[in-house]
């Protein structure tokens, strides 16, 4: 049986990169590849070992499944987290590369993506979906 792919996005509280990474992750998991992917909550992943609803499941999933990290900024928190608790991620998407490649996209704010921001999140999501297809095929 093919293994589902884990998607873990930057929590990026104060960054437009964080907002884009979360939106892109949700587009992949909810719309583009709902049957091939599982979203992993990064704060929960970091918290881990909670008595109830604990993050250990997230960590175990990433240990046993291919995982794609989506980084909102240069801190690479998602990658660091997966490396620390589960192993090396299979792929990493850097949101900044997309922001740099699409200077024409003006988001409303770091909180509100606006129409252009959502369009950019869809472009990013398409690329993540391609990665999902590669990883899902190889399993």
């Amino acid at each position, binding site marked *: 049986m093919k293994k589902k792919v884990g998607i873990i996005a930057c929590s990026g509280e*104060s960054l437009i990169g964080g907002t884009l990474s979360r939106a892109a*992750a949700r*587009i992949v998991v909810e719309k583009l590849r709902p049957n091939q992917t599982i979203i992993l909550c990064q704060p*929960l992943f970091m918290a881990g070992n909670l008595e*109830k609803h604990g*993050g250990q499941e997230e960590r175990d999933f990433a240990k046993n499944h291919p995982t794609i990290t989506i980084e909102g900024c240069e801190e690479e*928190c998602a990658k660091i987290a997966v490396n620390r608790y589960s192993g090396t991620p299979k792929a990493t998407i850097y949101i900044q590369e997309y922001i740099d490649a699409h200077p024409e996209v003006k988001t409303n704010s770091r909180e*509100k993506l606006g129409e252009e921001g959502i369009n950019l999140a869809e472009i990013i999501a398409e690329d993540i979906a391609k990665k999902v297809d590669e990883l899902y095929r190889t399993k």
Partner: protein
Amino acid sequence: MDKSLGVIARSIALKLIEKRPEIQLICPVLLNTGDEKYENFIESAKIIAIDGCMTRCATKLVENREKKPFKRIFIPDMSKKYGIKPTKELTLNEENEKLAEQIMEEIIKELEDVDVKKVLKSPKFEAIEFFDITVDKYHFNVPKEGYYFNENDYWIKPEGKTALLGISDYLQNAAADILFVEFPEIGSEMEQFDDAGSFESSKTVLQLISPGTGKTIRVNKALENNPELMNQDPYQKGWFIEIELKNFEEDKELLLNGPDYFEYMKEKIMKEKNALEQIRSEKDV
């Protein structure tokens, strides 16, 4: 974070920092990746944890740093309280925006009772090693390390992504007794060498010329009642404002470190002394 409850939590946090710029947003994940960004801040700050769901990760991640949140907000409870259901869409709908706004206002109101400026404690100070020189009856000192100076005699002390700003011992000597201070607005942005507030002494009024580029996040309220702290302890208790740095590596290119500033200051003092002696001797003649 993968659900709309998380989007509401994040929206509240962003609205809060827009409304009260002295509040600093903490990324709960970055807080736990071992990054030093929040190291100093978290020591002294009171923390509001905004949890989107039952896992209460924000609270948990704060507790992982051995801190207890000062206030906890749990979005499902708030959603019930205001009778607004979270949307399943990628972005918040009008109702959810309203919910985020209402919760933010509720937090602000509570903070106003406490006064957020009071919950931000004074920075911690440690013993400083100084270079010093005595000229006539005047004694001048300059910290050996940790402080950077512009040639206008203002210092900046970076700590991660933030920095304290103040005046040098030389400048407080030259200004004489400081009587009033005027701070920049919290949240105001400044470029390096822009004015960042002013102070008035028995001799003069001076603008603080910022050694760094950034945003004002805190002011030393103690100076309003005790401006003399700038004379008594210019490098520590007499700090003027705190800023969030934009790019200190770039700022540093136009600043002097402790040893270089000490040499610069000595030269300046000696020139002034010689000029003064010259004037006096001309008067005598």
